[in-house]
């Protein structure tokens, strides 16, 4: 088995565990490369269909190419897309730095959605190699009633014998891509010919390496105009993936505060 085969098989098995054990279930789709690859894995897990709603936490700040990509895949892949409008920034904790505060709108949007739809499980395409706080995550990660992540008291998670029970009034986050790296996702996207938002590919010497909202994400200098060139670039770069995400750099614990509060 190749590394990609191994990663794929494990992710599919996690997605199936979530589906057969937890309901109601939903999946977050940001239209980025990770959650789109995840959507592809869901289709593999259920032989072509996506048997739960696919949720976009919409701040109305995505780039136009991203919205166009959503509309196209919704049609082509026959997805049940739920566009969840996030609360305005004025309603978010004012002690957070500006970009962090903008990002926290998604946390608030997700919290409202979970409460309204009574979701017991939310599948999210985060990876351990993205960020050191995410490196500590569990595959099945229980949340406190307000959606917060109690990082200091996480339960044991042994082998692939997952604890899939959910306490009343709470939900669990499911992270099928935790073991994948950025370059794994690109290699898989290339191998499986999964569509991507064209903003990932360099134009005029710039490309988005990590795709966030237009108000808090900046493109990086790059000449990588194809997936093959992106993979080559990643094999030599020593820049972190989220360098273009403004909220990560506002203060030392910015991302920690976001995550423990329930951010993805």
């Amino acid at each position, binding site marked *: *088995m*190749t*590394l990609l*085969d*191994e990663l*794929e*098989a*494990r992710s*599919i*098995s996690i997605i*199936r*565990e979530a*589906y*057969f*054990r*937890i*309901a109601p279930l939903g999946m977050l789709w940001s239209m980025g490369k990770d959650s789109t690859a995840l959507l592809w894995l869901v*289709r*593999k*897990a*259920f*032989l*072509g269909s996506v*048997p739960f709603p696919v949720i976009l936490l919409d701040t109305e700040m995505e780039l136009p190419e991203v919205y166009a990509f959503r509309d196209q895949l919704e049609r082509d892949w026959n997805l049940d897309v739920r566009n969840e409008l996030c609360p305005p920034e004025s309603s978010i904790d004012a002690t957070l730095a500006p970009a962090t505060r903008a990002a926290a709108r998604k946390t608030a949007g997700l919290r409202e959605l979970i409460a309204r739809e009574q979701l017991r499980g939310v599948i999210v395409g985060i990876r*351990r*190699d993205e960020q*050191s*706080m995410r*490196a*500590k995550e*569990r595959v099945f990660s229980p949340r406190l009633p307000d959606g917060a992540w109690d*990082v*200091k008291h*996480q*339960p*044991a*998670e*042994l*082998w692939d*014998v*997952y*604890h899939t*029970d959910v*306490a009343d009034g709470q939900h669990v986050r499911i992270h099928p891509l935790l*073991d994948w*790296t950025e370059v794994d996702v690109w290699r898989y996207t290339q191998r499986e010919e999964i569509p991507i938002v064209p903003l990932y590919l360099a134009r005029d010497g710039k490309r988005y390496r990590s795709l966030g909202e237009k108000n808090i994400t900046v493109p990086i200098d790059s000449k990588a105009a194809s997936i093959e060139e992106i993979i080559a670039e990643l094999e030599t770069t*020593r*820049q*972190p993936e989220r360098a273009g995400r403004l909220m990560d750099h506002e203060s*030392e*614990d910015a991302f*920690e505060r976001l995550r423990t509060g329930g951010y993805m």
Partner: protein
Amino acid sequence: MNQLRVVAVGHVDHGKSTLIGRLLHETGNLPDGKVAELRTIAERRGVPFEWSFVLDAMQSERDQAVTIDTTRIWMRTPEREIVLIDAPGHKEFLRNMVTGASDADAALLLVDALEGVSEQTRRHALLLELIGVPRAVVVINKMDRVDYDVHRYTAIRAEMEALLQRTGVAATAFVPTDAREGENVVAAGSPRMAFYEGPSVLEALIALPERARGASDALRIAVQGIVRHDLQRIILGRIESGELATGREVLISPARRSARVASLEVWPPREKVTARAGESIGFTLDGPYFVDRGDVISDTGHAPTLATSFRARLLWLGAGTLEAGGSYRMRFGTRTATVEVAMVERVIDIESLGKGDGDGIARTNDVAEAVFTSAQTLPLDVVGDHPGLARFILLDGLDIVAGGTILATLNTGSAGDLVPVGHLLDARARARRNGHLGAVVWFTGLPGAGKSTIAMEVERRLFEGGCHAYVLDGDNVRAGLNKDLGFSPEDRHENIRRVGELAALFADSGTIAIASFISPYRSDRATARRAAGAAFHEIYIKADAATCEARDPKGHYAKARAGALPSFTGITGDYEEPQNAELVVDTSVLSVEDAVDTVLAYIDERILAPVRPGGSLLARTPLEADSP
């Protein structure tokens, strides 16, 4: 595949995070500016810079200078990708240490050269064995604190060799290091430790053998669920070990039915005839067999053992104690079962790693061996043969209280690997002639719940459908076989025990025995289940006490209220609801007709379909969706 996952373990403060920080730095695996950023932060906080800051990115960890949770970091070298899993050394974070270790192919086990082998070192070695990490690179760190003394190195090495030999973890190298200064970390041949001629830590990691999946060749798939697709029932699961191929005969456990693989299903659709260990797969069988989540698919020759009792070794993580009588939910493979602790045989003594006697009680963070029993017959593997499905967790409510492995199966009652082949064929021959399996269909429920009414109607419908069926109930059993028994608690237990044995004999003869008894005690029903093994089907005829009393078909409630029936179950409230009934029929919402149809649909799938594909007692109605 050349990737390797390595967990770093050992006593707190023996330098794991420092070693990893240093490894990453020297192999060029840190992002530009990361070390500079952390130096600036350290300066701002007025603390000296530590290499462990690279991993301990979380604020609280920097404050306490210990690793709280497992974290991981990808290290690329020209030879192979190594995923380093940093696990906490503190005893109170043991659950996080085992979490990290359970994903690892090998371990980096650190020992402080000055402090030597500690209790925590021993405990971690023991847990590596329990979790199933096969190999370790031992790092004897902080050699600067013992002036790079070769004798100190040799003594610790000998002690570690002995320790690992006892736990069955293979040590591939014993590297003396000074991780803070980078001695023997990436390049071997530190001039300060000229006595050492072995590999550096990095070289030892690169030399580790590749991960091997599927320790055995025997097929194992734990069924995750069923989906319907183009009118097919597609079984979904991951191949734990062995190989699956179209046309191959497989066995479904615990039902112990054999079937042939009709097709392998993947998306995007393509012709696929074989699937190997590790693959997540979909497949169909050549008939409408009843397969459900939790079932195990195996070769016909090497099936899991069916047993109601087993011995296990486990790490007890619960805040309370583990002792005889405790009841937990156990998850293994994709199955959840209720198990009871029969006895805590021993708690492992960490100092000697020997089998201490103890007081029959395991406490938080103890590694113990215990015997468990289950009311249900379970398809079990033992860790020495098929590790994949022999691993389990125990749940107390919503809390994980233990992780462990099954060492041996103990009570293999019926139909296990020990059953003579001739006997199995006899049962098959009978089933073929009758057109159904022999079975015990056990109705339990409160007086007035509708057991008798439904039992008699089901018996009639089965008879009309050409099946051999017979109702056993209080009236026909107490009149003869059990006329020596009264209604004392002992006699009631004995009554059910005899009925259980009788029903099992009926089932063995090929008949569908419908046993209709209040049978209020779980332990009694468990005894009946043990007698019939996999042929036992517990059906809970459910209705709340008020409904039953309002119905009162035999006038018993009225008599009991008047004091004429002192130990009447409906009034005394000592009925123990089934926890794992195969079917629950709620007669407070279903009509008699619908209740009967529900039971018949179940019998269709579980008792008829294996022998008579397509045959049905019902006008075919669409089945319930399989998904939640």
